[in-house]
Each structure stands twice: as C-alpha cells, then as structure tokens.
C-alpha cells in the first residue's frame, strides 16, 4: 500500500502533545524556584555556615547538564520510563534496580515530608504576622497536609496554566529581588566573592553542593513526559537542558545577590538571624509592602506546588512497584473514579502525618530539623540515585547495539559518574557540617546509613524474588508494562541477569 497517504493515526495521536515550554514549566514548577531561593539557599547558608552556596548552584547545574546527556540518550531507548530505578535495572541489573527503587522511595518521601516543615513554618509566620493570630507551625503543616492528601487521592495536579502563571510570577519576583539586592550592596561595592571558584576547594563545600542538588530535584522528571511530546527525541533533551540552565542561573544569581546585599562576610550570620525571612527583609526597605506580601504568598504557593508534585511522584513509584508485584499488588490498584494510585497516595500521606506528629510532639525546629535536614537528606538520596543512574547509562550502552556516539554513551555519563561520585564522597565526609552538628554526632551517620540499609534491603528482596518468584523478578523495572514486556525503541538490548 502507498505510504504517500496521510498518516491520520499519527496526526490524531499528536493532538494535545506537549512542546518544550510545557515540559519545562512542569518540571521547574515541581522544583519550586522560590522555595529554593527563599528557603533552600538561606537555610543552606545558615545551617552549613558555608559562603560558597552560589558557586555550588552553578557547579551543580553544570554537572547535572553533563548527567542529562546520557540520561536523555537512554530515555529515548526505554519507552515510558520515568523512574531512575528503571534505568538502573536496565543498566546494572535487577537487584541494583530494586535497591535503587527503595532508595528512591526514601529520598522522595524525605523531600516531600521535609517540605512540610518549611510550608508549616512559613505559612504560620505569614498568618501570625499579618493577622496577629498564634498559629503553631505544625497546625499549618497539618492543614497543608490535609489539602495535599485530598488532592492526592483525587488525582488533582495543579493545572498547567495555573502552574505557568505562578512559575513566571515566582521568577519575576526572584529576579526583581536580585536586581534590588545587587543595586543595594552592603558596603557600597558589589562583591563577587561568593562566586569565586576557590570555594569549590574550601571546607564544607560538600554540604553546599548537596544543598544545591536538593534545589534541582524534580528536573529529572522531564523524561516522564517523553511519550506525550511532539518530538520525543528533541523536546525532552532540550527541555531538560533548559530547565537545568534556567534554574541553575536563577539559584546561583539569587544566592549571590543575597550575599551582595548583606556583604559576603555577614551572609551566614544574617541567614542565621532571619532564616527564611532573609530575602524578604533585604528587599522590603526598597519595595512596597504589597509587593513583598505577594512574594511571600508566592513562596507559600511554590512550597505547596512542590509538596503536591513530590506526593504524586511517591504515589506513582509505589504504583509502579505494586504493578510489578515487587511491593504488594494492592499498591498497583487505582481509585476507580479518579484513576489515582490510591493506595500509594494514602500510604505516603499516612507516613507524612506520622512524621509531622512526631516532630510536633518532640518540639523539633520545623525549619532546621524538618525542612533542611530532611530535604537535604532527600537530596542526598537523589544524588546517590543520579550517581548510580549515570553508571547504569554506561552499562546500558555497553550492552546494547546502538547508534549513539561515544560522547553520549560513554564520555559524558562517565564524567558525570565521576563528578557525582565526587560530590557524594565529599558530602558524606562533611555530613556533620551539612546538618550543623558536632563532627562526632551519631546523626551524621544515621541519615546516610538509612540509604545503605534500604538499598541492601532492596537488593536482598530482589535476590529472594529471583529464587521464589521468577515471574515477578523478570518484571522488575517494567512498571505498568509488566504484562507486555519492555518496549524498546529500535535498538535491541540484552537484559542483564
């Protein structure tokens, strides 16, 4: 039959596909720029006491762009793979894949639950200042939790257009603030000190780097949309690079601008004194109150967007693992009416509730002990995942016949593995600095050890499945495709044992 006839099937399926801007909006909104700028960077200065935060954001953006080269190249060959553990499974084998899945579950849960600390404290402070009420952080956190829990089971994501508007507003606010801070330097001179590359070799840089990585978590989500884009080969790659570049520059610029406004030598002290208020306090003398109020509201909405996004991420991970029967099959069930991964959503909400109640009862600090400690621990988990995924990309391409050049299949992922592994090493060495605790505190090992424990648990579980339940073992990493097998793009791949 003639192939010159119009391809109506492709035309119909192409309707409503996403372009580069939509994908960029979705992932940057999940990364929540204002949360990182106003919350992550300031708390990073305060807790770690490191002044090299701005240069860390830029350096991490460069490393992640390198990581994205191989990651995106591999995503083209694994149809419908949005999760790191799928890559690890295909590249390094199923036991490593299940280990990675467990690390991912812990990491994304930590990201999400930690954000409740920020959301609760910031919301409470905003309402208390404005309306003179005496709300506690945990009551606000639980209110936000209830909304996220309901939207989670109802499978309501933030509307794409709403997200876009909020995101643009956040960026405008951040850039305006940056302009004001840079034009009003502390000692009358603009200092580039915090951007000096020498910080990379300074003590405490590991803590600064993992703080920066935490700010980028969410950019890896571009590949989730690969099947829904107009041109999967180009859209995803470009959207990923744009997302990394835009967020990297914005974070680096904003963190640097804050240090200009306070003076590089006083940024740590100022951040410790003002906390997440720092950026607002620095600009409020030069701006109308209403604008600062709008900015504070946007800070809260950006926290909320990030909370909801990570909630959905965890619920989807649980769903995919339930579908594969790696976790009990009940996780693979959906809400009949809404199609939400119901059980996964409820379990995530339940876990978050337990942690929030625990923190409230213990009277721990919501910003330092919950927001910062737990989200950077989440960031550490994602750093581990990215390091392993980079290695998996090399393994995948080494084992498959493909048409990618050595840059995408070997050199870039190799460099990314080394760079991410290096960051991971210094992070672990400096975890006490990161948490702001004494070097001999047992806490510095507790958080990283949790990842080692769940990874070993996952590997052990995979080995148990291999002998007791080969069908389930064979389906590891397939997610929703467990009954149909992997759908590989043109190149063929041998699956490691």
């Amino acid at each position, binding site marked *: *039959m003639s*192939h010159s*006839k119009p*391809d*109506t*099937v*492709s035309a*119909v*399926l192409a*309707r*409503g596909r996403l372009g580069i801007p939509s994908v960029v909006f*979705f992932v940057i909104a999940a990364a929540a720029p204002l949360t990182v700028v106003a919350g992550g960077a300031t708390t990073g200065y305060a807790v770690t006491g490191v002044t090299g935060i701005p240069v860390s954001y830029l350096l991490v953006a460069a490393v992640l762009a390198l990581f994205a080269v191989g990651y995106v190249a591999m995503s083209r060959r694994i149809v*419908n793979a*949005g999760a790191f553990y799928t890559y690890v499974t295909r590249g390094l084998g199923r036991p490593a894949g299940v280990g990675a899945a467990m690390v991912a579950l812990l990491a994304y849960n930590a990201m999400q639950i930690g954000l409740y600390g920020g959301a609760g404290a910031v919301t409470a402070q905003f309402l208390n200042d404005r309306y003179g009420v005496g709300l506690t952080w945990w009551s606000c956190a639980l209110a936000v939790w209830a909304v996220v829990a309901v939207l989670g089971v109802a*499978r*309501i*994501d*933030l*509307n*794409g257009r709403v997200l876009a508007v909020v995101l643009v507003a956040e960026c405008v606010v951040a850039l305006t603030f940056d302009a004001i801070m840079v034009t009003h330097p502390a000692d009358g001179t603009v200092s580039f000190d915090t951007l000096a590359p020498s910080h990379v070799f300074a003590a405490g840089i590991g803590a600064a780097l993992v703080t920066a990585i935490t700010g980028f978590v969410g950019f890896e989500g571009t590949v*989730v*949309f690969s*099947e*829904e884009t107009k041109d999967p080969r180009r859209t995803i790659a470009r959207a990923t690079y744009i997302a990394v570049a835009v967020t990297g520059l914005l974070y680096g610029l904003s963190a640097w601008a804050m240090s200009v406004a306070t003076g590089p030598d006083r940024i740590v002290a100022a951040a410790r004194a003002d906390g997440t208020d720092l950026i607002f306090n620095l600009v409020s003398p030069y701006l109308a109150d209403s604008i600062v109020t709008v900015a504070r509201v946007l800070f809260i909405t950006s926290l909320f967007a990030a909370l909801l996004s990570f909630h959905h991420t965890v619920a*989807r991970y649980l*769903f*995919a693992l339930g*579908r594969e029967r790696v976790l009990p099959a009940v996780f*693979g*069930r*959906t*809400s*009949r*009416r*809404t*199609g*939400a*991964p119901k059980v996964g959503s409820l379990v995530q909400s339940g876990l978050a509730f337990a942690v929030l109640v625990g923190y409230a009862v213990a009277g721990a600090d919501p910003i330092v002990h919950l927001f910062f400690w737990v989200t950077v621990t989440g960031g550490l988990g994602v750093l581990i995942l990215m390091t392993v995924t980079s290695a998996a990309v090399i393994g995948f391409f080494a084992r498959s016949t493909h048409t990618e050049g050595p840059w995408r299949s070997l050199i870039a992922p190799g460099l990314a593995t080394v760079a991410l592994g290096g960051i991971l090493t210094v992070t672990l060495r400096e975890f006490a600095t990161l948490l702001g605790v004494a070097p001999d505190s047992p806490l510095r090992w507790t958080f990283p050890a949790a990842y080692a424990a769940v990874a070993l648990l996952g590997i052990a579980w995979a080995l148990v499945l291999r002998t007791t339940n080969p069908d389930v073992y064979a389906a590891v990493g397939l*997610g*929703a*495709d*467990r*009954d*149909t*097998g992997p*759908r590989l793009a043109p190149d063929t791949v041998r699956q490691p044992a």
Partner: protein
Amino acid sequence: MNSTPHGDDHAPHLREHPTPARPVRAVGSAAMPSTVRLADEFFYLAHDDQTGRSRLFESATAYGLAAALLAELYGEGRVTFEGRRLRVINTVPPKDWLQHLVLDRLVAEPRHTETRTWLAYFATAAYHQVATRMWQLGLLRQQQVGRLWRQRTVYVPADMNTAAWSWARLSFQLRNHQRLNAFDVALAGLAMHTQLDPILLDGTPVAVRAFLRQQVEQAPPPLRDLLADLGAVVGSAVLSHRTT
C-alpha cells in the same frame, strides 16, 4: 435471578451473544438490538445503570472501549493479536457500522501495527462512537446537562434493567464460582484490566478475585495479548497523569 439466561449458549466465540430473554422497554423508534456487543456491554459496566454517570476514570473508560471494539473485530474473525501487534486477517466489512469503521481504519493504515498505538488512537473517539451506536439502537438516550455556557450531552441508559444486566450477570456468576462463557470472559477481562473489577467484586472474599483472574486467563491467547496491552496503557495513563 436467572444466572444462565443464555441456556445452552456454549459457543466458544464472542459473536452473536443473544440479549437476555426479558422484556426490554423500547425507547424512540429505533429497532431493538438483535445481538449484544462487547463494547456496549463494557459501556454499561463502566457507567451507572440509572444516571449514566461514569464509574471509571475517563482515560480507562476510553481505552476499555477501544479494546472492546478491537475485541469485537477479533470475535468477528477480522483481526488477531500476535504479541504486541495487531494483524488484519479478513478485510470483509462487518455488518455493524462501527466495526466496519474500525476495520476500515486498520486496513487503511497498515504502517501502524502496534496494538498500543491503535488503542490510543481509537480511545480518542471510542466513547462518542460507542455511545452513538447504542443511542441509535435505543439503548441510551441523550440528556443535556450543565449550565448554558457549559452544556454537554451525557448518555443515560434507556432501560435500567438492560444496563444493569452485564454487571448482575458477571457479578453473580463470579460470586458463585460459575464458569464464564467466552463473551463474559472477554468482558470480565476488559473490566479487570481497566481496574473496574472492584464493582464486580465489591464485598466478596479474596477467593472470588482469584476466580476472576483464573477465568480471564482462560481467554484465547490473542485476546490475552490485547488485554495485556490494555492493562499497560491504563497503567501508563495512571503514571503519566497530569491535570491539563
């Protein structure tokens, strides 16, 4: 309840499934259907028998109906499924206009063979097409709902008993561990792979779920291939969901 209304209907094929031998209220001037089709029955299962409200999320309903239409063509001996691909084996147009339309598309676009691609393609229009077919047969009536500026048409079953029949039949037979005939195996398979099975199994012991699974596994291999693809597209719809 008469659990085996089809009496000696043991034909291991999906076609020409007779209507329940009960009086059905005719609406309008449309002729009464002489056969029951898989997509119509799935439509009934996926919607409330009284209000016509959806019992299942939109994308799963759409994929389920698309799969049901392909299964109808399989039942008519026009197509088969081999692994992840669909193959047309007989291009003679079926009597039913919708089956004809679907087959026509499959024949006209031979470059697309992946079952998943076709499920996605037919899912875009399946709801409207199946509802129209049922409406033309007097099985559904149209109702305008919503305010002036957001009016839309919903389809409400013309007869509650006809609409509830597929659910009642499947549910009763499963609860009593009675073997399903070929038609009902396919229908139960569609329900199971769109995650609609809780409405059949509501309040039943775990053993009934296992029985359902075991019955669906009796389906012929091509149909099982189709159902596997259906489960995968519904699963990925859950995974890649976003509110637009």
